[in-house]
């Protein structure tokens, strides 16, 4: 087992790290205060080839693997967790189109994503989140495709995206076969963006209500086959889980670094770094961050090697999120009252970590999936 980085992986890490330090860091606080993840940042992420990371080179992308992807997300998230999510949603969307899109769709969308267009995957509805079967956005057959009506919420990148995948009910068949995934372009008649969500953290993630009223999805924009929607969403969701987990690792690393710095500066009965309890907190954080990183890298390598069983990715996501929550808690204890103010940057990382457990699945639902898998029980029913 070789834990050394390849040249490609080193290059991706260098580019992501330099971008985070020079472009993101000066704007991170402003992004948190205003929610503005401006077009200039997207342009520069595109120029650095981060936004086309998983897209093959012939289609304009960087052609990198999932291990490079998780490293890049982590580097961005160390400075601005919202940026990690922007890259995650872009990569998940591009993966879905690459794996399941028609040739015509791939030729249009993937080069566009490599050159500045942004993608998003819309699944969640007001009454359907972990339970995809409760989705109410309905598609009516029309001219070889579908006209869809319904609404979506909590879709990362929705406020800035040019292309969206939308999961909808394509028939009244029972079970997953009723769900289909299609691609909608921004500006398509019958598709409007609604209000933006105000959130406690991850404020650079522009979450909008999406309203569909007879919005047409042509046949060539259907991903995979009609009725494959849930399966494709789960497969692409692996990229999403890797991204959320890496964002958690990056945010946890930031908390850890800031905590070490503060522990050496803060004087209370002498430098608090000299107190054993603080040393134990730091030790626990060091372990959690390191192990989280290893477990997510293992999951990414497994996906690169063609592993079909998603259990490693679920387990990685469970561990990384819980670890980040614990690191955030320990950080708050080390910073005490100052961690509750906006005087130090640590409070925004703590708030951002609080929002991560709910993206694409709850920890509880995922936990039951892992438990059922281990026990040989069916996931559904």
């Amino acid at each position, binding site marked *: 087992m070789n834990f050394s980085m390849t*040249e*490609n992986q080193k*290059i*991706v890490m*260098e*580019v992501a790290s*330099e*971008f985070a330090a*020079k*472009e993101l860091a000066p704007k991170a606080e402003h992004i948190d205060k205003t929610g503005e993840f401006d077009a200039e940042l997207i342009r*520069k992420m595109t*120029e*650095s*080839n*981060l936004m086309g*990371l998983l897209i093959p*080179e012939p289609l304009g992308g*960087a052609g*990198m693997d999932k291990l490079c992807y998780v490293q890049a997300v982590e580097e961005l998230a160390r400075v601005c967790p919202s940026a990690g999510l922007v890259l995650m949603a872009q990569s998940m969307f591009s993966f879905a189109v690459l794996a399941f899109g028609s040739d015509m769709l791939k030729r249009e969308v993937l080069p566009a994503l490599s050159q500045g267009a942004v993608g998003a995957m819309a699944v969640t509805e007001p009454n359907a989140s972990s339970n995809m079967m409760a989705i109410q956005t309905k598609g009516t057959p029309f001219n070889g495709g579908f006209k869809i009506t319904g609404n979506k919420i909590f879709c990362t990148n929705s406020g800035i995206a040019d292309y969206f995948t939308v999961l909808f009910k394509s028939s009244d068949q029972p079970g997953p076969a009723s769900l289909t995934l299609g691609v909608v372009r921004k500006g398509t008649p019958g598709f409007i963006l609604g209000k933006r969500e105000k959130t406690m953290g991850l404020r650079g993630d522009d979450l909008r209500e999406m309203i569909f009223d007879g919005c047409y999805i042509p046949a060539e924009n259907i991903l995979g086959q009609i009725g494959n929607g849930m399966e494709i969403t789960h497969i692409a969701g692996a990229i999403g889980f890797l991204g959320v987990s890496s964002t958690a690792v990056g945010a946890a690393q930031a908390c850890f670094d800031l905590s070490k710095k503060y522990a050496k500066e803060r004087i209370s009965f002498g430098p608090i770094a000299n107190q054993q309890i603080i040393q134990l907190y730091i030790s626990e954080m060091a372990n959690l961050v390191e192990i989280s990183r290893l477990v997510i890298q293992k999951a990414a390598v497994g996906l690169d090697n063609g592993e079909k069983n998603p259990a490693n990715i679920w387990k990685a996501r469970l561990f990384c999120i819980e670890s980040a929550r614990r690191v955030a808690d320990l950080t708050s204890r080390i910073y005490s009252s100052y961690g509750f103010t906006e005087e130090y940057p640590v409070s925004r990382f703590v708030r951002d970590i609080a929002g991560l457990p709910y993206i694409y699945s709850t920890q509880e639902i995922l936990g039951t999936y892992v438990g059922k898998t281990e026990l040989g029980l069916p996931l559904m029913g």
Partner: protein
Amino acid sequence: MNIVACIKQVPGTTEVKIDNSTNTIVREGVAAIINPFDLYAVEEAVRIKEKTEGKVTALSMGILSVAELLKDTIAVGADEAVLLSDRAFAGSDTLATSYTLAMGIRKIGEFDLIICGKQSADGDTAQVGPSLAEKLGIPHLTMVKKIIEISKKHLLCERLTDDGFEVVELQLPAVITVVKDINTPRLPSIKGKMRAKNAEIKIWNAEDICADKELCGLNGSPTQVISTFIPNFEASTEIIETNANEAARILSGILTDMGLN
């Protein structure tokens, strides 16, 4: 358009050590970076290439390790890079440097524009750009802050002055030196770094560029560094403790005695 961007390796630190035997900066063991002003030169060269098509060649003179630094120019869009490296080039002052660079550029071949950074962070002379132009027998313009128009034979640009700027028209080929106002250097992209990783940096010695060794290095340097030191500033302080009017009168007298009033 064919553009040559000249870069120099400088110490990546403000804590500079001096070799007392040669009175030059100790570069071994010190992390090296591209001279910050030269980053703007490379960026502007790449931007011109992107608008007009053509080629950007990054050129440097230095020790062999500079080849790795030159790869950074490929990573941000230069098409190729050349390093002039030879023991004979060591200890060059700005005249010998500009002679060597001129010989290197002659070997590169046809060019339309040469871009240099305003000055180097270690030498600070700002002489190489103009001197290079003289060696090549072409016009030059320093302190360029904006290129307004460019074609194969003609350049219209803004030049920074003490009072603001002036608009200057220049015939090409020419040398320009650029200031930081001209652009914001891009960060290397993933594809750029991949290109750089595989790039072969041409390394030419004195013989390759047909340079007269008597005109290179210490041999070709009419200026010699006699002494390099960090100046000590000593200040004496006198505090005038009285009311404001009286203090002003006393201070005025002191300044008059010093010939400053």
